[in-house]
C-alpha cells in the first residue's frame, strides 16, 4: 500500500542526523506526541478486539472475564458447520457477492467507456454529476426509494411494465424471495455505477493520446481503438480492484440485506454477517457469533491470497 510518489521539484537531501536512539527520540518528541495517542487508539479499537476471537473457543458466559471462561475447543465451529441454516446463508452470501462482483465490474467499465466517448464538455459534466449522486445518499434512503419504485401501488417499475403489456397484474417484487438477489444487485448498480466509473475514467485519461492518433492513421475505427488501446490501458487498474474485491467476497456486509429484506424473503436475504448479528447479539450467543466472524475472516484471507497468487503467476507482479 506504499504510494509511489516522487518528491516535488527540488530533490533535497533528507536530514540525516547522528546520535543515539534516545537522543533522536528526544529530538523527535513532537512527532511522538502527535502520533502516539493515535497508535494507542488504534491498538484499543483494532487490535484489542482480536483478543475477542478467543471467545469462539469458549462457552462464553457474561459477567466473567475472558480468562475465566470454559474452554470448549472447536465445539462452536462444529455446531456452525452442522447447522443447515449456515449453508443457506452461505449460499445467499456467495450468490449476492458473485452477482455484485460481475455487475460491479462490467457495468462501471462499460459506463466509463461510453463516458469517454462523449465529446461535449457540458453534457459530459452534467451526466457525471448526476451519476455520482446516488453514491452520496445512505442505504436507508436507497432502500426507501427501491421499495417505492417496486411497490404495487403506483411504483414506477410496475406501472411501466403494465403499460408496456409485459405483465397483466402488478408484481409484488419485495415479497418474492426469488427476486431478492436481483433487487440487491440492481440497487447496488444504481447506487454505485457512476462512482465506480471515476477510477476507470481517470485511468483512461492517463492513456497516451499518441496511441489513438497512431491507430487512427492505421485506419482503426472506434471499436478497434476501444478494444486494442482503451481496454488494455485500464487493465492494471481493473486487476488491482478485482483482487481487492475478491477478498471481500464473503464479507459483503449486511446493510443492503438488512434494509431491503423482510420476513417474507428471509430465506434469500439472510447473509453470513446478518446471521452472526442475529445469533451473536440478538440471542446473546457471543461465542457462536464470533466463530462465524472468524470463519468469514479466514475465508477472505484465503481468497485474497489465492487471487493474488494467480495474478502473480500471470504477470510476475504482486499486489499485496
Amino acid at each position, binding site marked *: 500500500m506504499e504510494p509511489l510518489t516522487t*518528491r516535488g521539484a527540488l530533490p533535497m537531501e533528507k536530514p540525516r542526523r547522528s546520535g543515539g536512539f534516545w537522543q533522536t527520540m528526544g529530538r523527535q518528541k513532537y512527532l511522538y506526541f502527535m502520533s502516539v495517542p493515535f497508535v494507542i487508539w488504534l491498538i484499543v479499537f483494532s487490535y484489542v478486539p*482480536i483478543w475477542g476471537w478467543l471467545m469462539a473457543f469458549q462457552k462464553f458466559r457474561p459477567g466473567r472475564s475472558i480468562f475465566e471462561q470454559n474452554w470448549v475447543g472447536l465445539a462452536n465451529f462444529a455446531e456452525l458447520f452442522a447447522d443447515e441454516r449456515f449453508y443457506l446463508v452461505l449460499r445467499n452470501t456467495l450468490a449476492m457477492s458473485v452477482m455484485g462482483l460481475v455487475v460491479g465490474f462490467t457495468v462501471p467499465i462499460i459506463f466509463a467507456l461510453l463516458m469517454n466517448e462523449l465529446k461535449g464538455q457540458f453534457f459530459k459534466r452534467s451526466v457525471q454529476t448526476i451519476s455520482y449522486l446516488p453514491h452520496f445518499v445512505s442505504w*436507508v434512503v436507497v432502500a426507501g426509494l427501491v421499495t417505492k419504485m417496486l411497490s404495487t401501488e403506483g411504483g414506477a417499475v410496475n406501472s411501466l411494465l403494465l403499460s408496456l403489456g409485459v405483465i397483466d397484474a402488478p408484481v409484488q417484487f419485495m415479497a418474492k424471495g426469488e427476486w431478492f438477489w436481483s433487487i440487491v444487485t440492481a440497487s447496488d448498480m444504481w447506487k454505485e455505477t457512476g462512482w465506480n466509473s471515476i477510477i476507470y475514467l481517470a485511468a483512461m485519461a492517463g492513456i497516451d493520446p499518441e496511441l489513438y492518433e497512431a491507430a487512427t492513421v492505421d485506419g482503426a475505427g472506434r471499436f478497434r481503438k476501444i478494444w486494442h488501446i482503451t481496454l488494455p490501458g485500464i487493465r492494471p487498474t481493473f486487476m488491482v480492484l478485482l483482487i481487492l474485491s475478491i477478498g471481500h467476497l464473503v464479507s459483503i456486509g449486511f446493510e443492503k440485506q438488512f434494509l431491503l429484506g423482510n420476513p417474507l424473503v428471509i430465506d434469500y436475504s439472510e447473509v453470513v454477517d446478518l446471521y452472526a448479528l442475529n445469533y451473536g447479539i440478538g440471542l446473546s450467543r457471543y461465542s457462536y457469533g464470533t466463530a462465524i466472524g472468524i470463519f468469514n475472516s479466514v475465508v477472505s484471507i484465503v481468497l485474497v491470497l489465492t487471487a493474488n497468487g494467480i495474478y502473480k503467476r500471470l504477470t510476475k507482479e504482486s499486489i499485496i
Partner: protein
Amino acid sequence: MTWARKSLSDRLFDLVLYAAMIFTVVVTLYPFLNVLAISLNDSTDTVRGGIHIWPREFTLKNYETIFQYSGLMTGFRNSVIRTLAGTLIGVISASMVAYVLSREEFQARRLFSMLFALTMYFSGGLIPVYMLMRDLSLLNSFWVYLIPGLLSVWNVFIIRSYINGLPYALQESAKIDGANDFTIYWRVVLPLCQPVLATVALFIAVGQWNSWFDTYLYNSSNESLTTLQYELMKVLQSTQNNADAARNPNMAQNIAAVSPESIRMAITIVVTLPILLVYPFLQKYFVKGMTLGAVKS
C-alpha cells in the same frame, strides 16, 4: 468532425451513446423527483396514484407534520452535531498521523505505518467489537459516534501521499527558522493540503451523515441519542412490518393523521437534501482525491 462527414456506423454509435446517457440520467433522477413530488403533494390525493415528477395538489402539510414529531428534531440535531464534530476530528487526526508518517527520518515510522496498514486487512468482527464498546461504557453514549471512528486509515494514506508530493524544501526552510514539528504541520503543511483535506472531509461527512447502524446497535434504547437515518430506517421498516408502528405511539398518531407514504417521502427528502446540496460543489476535489487514493495504492 461534423455530423455530415461521419460514417454511418459512427453516427449510429453516437445515437446509441446519447440514448444510453439520457437513459442513465432519467433512471437516476426519477426516483428522487418522484419522492420530492409525493412529499409535496396532498396526502389524500396521493393515494389516487399517478404522481410522477410534479405534485398534483401542492402542500407543505407533510413537512409541517414531520417537524412536529420530536424524534425527528432530536435526530436532526444529533446528526448535525456528529457530522460536524466527526468531520473536524477526522480531518485533524488523519492529517496529523499522515504528516508524522510522511517524515522519513521519524524513528517509529515503519512500525507505526505497519500497525496502521495491517488493520486494513482484518478486523475483530462484529461481536468482539460490540463487547469492546460495552466494556468501554460506550453503549448508550454519544461518544460511540465519534471515538471508534476517530481515524480512518484509508484517509491517512490518501493524505500522506499528497504530502509526499509537496516540495520538502518548504518544511526545511520552516525548520531553519526554528519551527518545531507541530508548528510545521499546523502552519506549513496543513494549509498546503487544502484540496485533499476537502476530499477527506467530504468522505467523512457523508459517512457520518449516512450512518445508522451504530445508532441501531449501540444506542437504540436511548431516544435522546437517535439520528436522522435511524429515524428514517424505523419509519421505513415499520411500513414493512406494521407491528413496529404500534410500539411507537407518537409516530402511529402521525401515520393515522396523514398517509404514511407522504410522511415517508417527506422524511426521505429531509434526510437526503443536505448532502445533495453540498456535493456538486466539492465534486472537483473528490474526483481528484479518489484517483489519488485508488490509482496509487
